[in-house]
């Protein structure tokens, strides 16, 4: 976890920030509202509600870990990540429920019921939800602007706001499905909702849209060398991109065009979800690489192999290479070495961040890296570098991919035939 950038800006300073209290009040109001809804769900469908909360909470874990890992080098404070998640789950949802309903009603009133039936969900939901979620990243900027110091930070906070929204919305939809089924307190509709919204649609859902809009806020805040007009335009385009991706996903296009069955469902998922997914992954990758390049350059400037070697510099800038270095250590010297490599990588990342903040005051971070280096030397694996690709890893990758495709196919077949 990174230290606050502003010297002395600890929790006490945060408490003196007016925006902090406003955001806290909004989170509290959202918590009250969502608790009322949850209480109603629990009273009507206790088993289904507990199942939905449990399943979707579990779904949040891999998403959270993935998003957190994106910003390995300059990790965000856990408290702010929780605020972002809570904003999505409590504030954005509380605002979006009445706002989306009202907008869809207006589409029916000013257009027609037919227009609302076809395009209401596609237009009303994204219009309200994307704004409400993006305000979560703005809230983070207001209460801790020094923590949003790269486009990638915006991506991380935006993705977590989206994740919070997605999880709560999925729970609401799951209980809505239980009510619609009219079979009482049954978990079957929850499982179906989990498969459709969590498993199949989860990858290209609010987390992704939030990441794109968050990137725009990050760009707006960070790129001070650009004109304000350009930054506002880019932030607006990012929000528009998130909105457009969401509209495409919710749109009635291809709703019936490709027929039933797993192949048709897969084609629709690919057409509607893949373009935004690839675009956003590309942007995230680019933001990640630029940030990594910046921090790795700080470490390279030390020219001290005890702090970081040439091989480690290569590995540290890429998530997959960092993982490969840990795997290599595990293959050579066991799990202890894997854990030690991870600790060394973390220490090197902290040192890089501190070098960029206060280069004259990094003594304790040097010591930290030295300590982890000594631990690795003692294990007989002095350097956290990437090894040659092993057949075991290749087989594991192929096996995991095959398993994922099989599970996806079974889910698609079950849902497509339903």
């Amino acid at each position: 976890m990174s230290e606050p950038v502003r010297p002395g800006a600890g929790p006490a300073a945060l408490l003196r920030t007016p925006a902090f209290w406003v955001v806290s009040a909004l989170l509290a109001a959202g918590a009250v509202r969502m608790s009322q809804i949850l209480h109603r769900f629990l009273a009507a469908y206790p088993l289904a509600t507990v199942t939905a909360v449990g399943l979707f909470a579990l779904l949040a874990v891999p998403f959270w870990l993935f998003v957190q890992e994106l910003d390995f080098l300059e990790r965000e404070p856990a408290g702010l990540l929780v605020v972002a998640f809570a904003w999505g789950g409590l504030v954005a949802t509380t605002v979006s429920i009445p706002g989306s309903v009202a907008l869809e009603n207006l589409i029916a009133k000013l257009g027609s019921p037919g227009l609302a039936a076809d395009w209401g969900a596609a237009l009303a939901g994204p219009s309200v939800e994307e704004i409400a979620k993006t305000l979560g990243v703005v809230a983070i900027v207001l209460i801790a602007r020094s923590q949003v110091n790269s486009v990638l930070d915006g991506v991380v906070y935006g993705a977590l706001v989206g994740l919070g929204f997605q999880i709560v919305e999925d729970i609401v939809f799951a209980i809505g499905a239980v009510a619609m089924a009219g079979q009482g307190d049954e978990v079957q509709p929850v499982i179906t909702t989990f498969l459709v919204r969590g498993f199949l649609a989860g990858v290209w859902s609010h987390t992704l849209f939030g990441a794109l809009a968050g990137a725009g806020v990050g760009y707006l805040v960070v790129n001070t060398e650009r004109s304000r007009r350009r930054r506002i335009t880019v932030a607006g385009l990012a929000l528009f991109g998130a909105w457009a991706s969401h509209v495409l996903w919710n749109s009635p296009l291809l709703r019936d065009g490709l027929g039933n069955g797993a192949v048709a469902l897969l084609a629709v998922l690919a057409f509607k979800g893949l373009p935004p997914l690839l675009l956003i992954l590309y942007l995230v990758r680019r933001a990640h690489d630029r940030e990594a390049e910046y921090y790795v350059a700080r470490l390279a400037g030390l020219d001290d192999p005890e702090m970081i070697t040439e091989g480690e510099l290569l590995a540290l800038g890429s998530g997959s290479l960092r993982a490969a270095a840990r795997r290599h250590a595990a293959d050579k010297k066991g799990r202890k070495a894997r854990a030690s490599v991870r600790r060394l990588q973390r220490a090197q990342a902290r040192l890089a961040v501190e070098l960029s903040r206060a280069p004259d005051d990094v003594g304790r971070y040097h010591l930290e890296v030295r300590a982890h280096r000594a631990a690795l030397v003692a294990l007989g694996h002095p350097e956290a570098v990437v090894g040659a690709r092993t057949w075991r890893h290749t087989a594991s990758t192929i096996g995991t991919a095959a398993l994922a495709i099989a599970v996806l196919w079974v889910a698609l077949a079950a849902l497509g035939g339903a």
Partner: protein
Amino acid sequence: MGTVTRRHLTDLPSTPGLLGAFVLVAVLAALAFGLPAVDRAVSAQRSLPDDTPYRVAAGVTVVPPDGATLDVTGTRPGEDRGTALFRLGPVRYAIAVQPFSGDLTAAAHRLRQRITGTSGYQVTGTQLAVSTAGGLAGLQGGYTAGDRGGRYAVFVVHGLTIEVTVSGADLDLGRTLPAIEASTRTLRFDGTR
């Protein structure tokens, strides 16, 4: 996209805290309260021609009661499912059509479950058979919620369920129910979706 800067990170106004927070609250309020206020300000009622069948969805039609208006906020036509919401003064008359693979008993059970799943709602009396002029056979019953009463009817035809719910204050219901029941008897499935 962006580059990393380690200096004081932005040239946005240096103390945007409170003002920014108020703008944040204002936008949220516009979404949560402003949009619903605008929605309430625009009428949802549309007049309907007398004695003319209204197409609900999936080939199901009904002749609304004379004087009824269409509430567009609860009306969503569709090829395989949809809803229509009519209002007779304060009385709400809703028809929902959706695909269904079970029989009439199962459809009625499902509708009753949904009604009683809403806090404070209770089904009352016994369920009776009902039929329409077009030959649809169904079941009907009643329910209450505090000082409001309600009637429901359900039909199953060609893989569809047609659910009718009527709700309003007891006095209003008593006055309008004959016209609504006459309207329900005009429900028809014309076989074209």
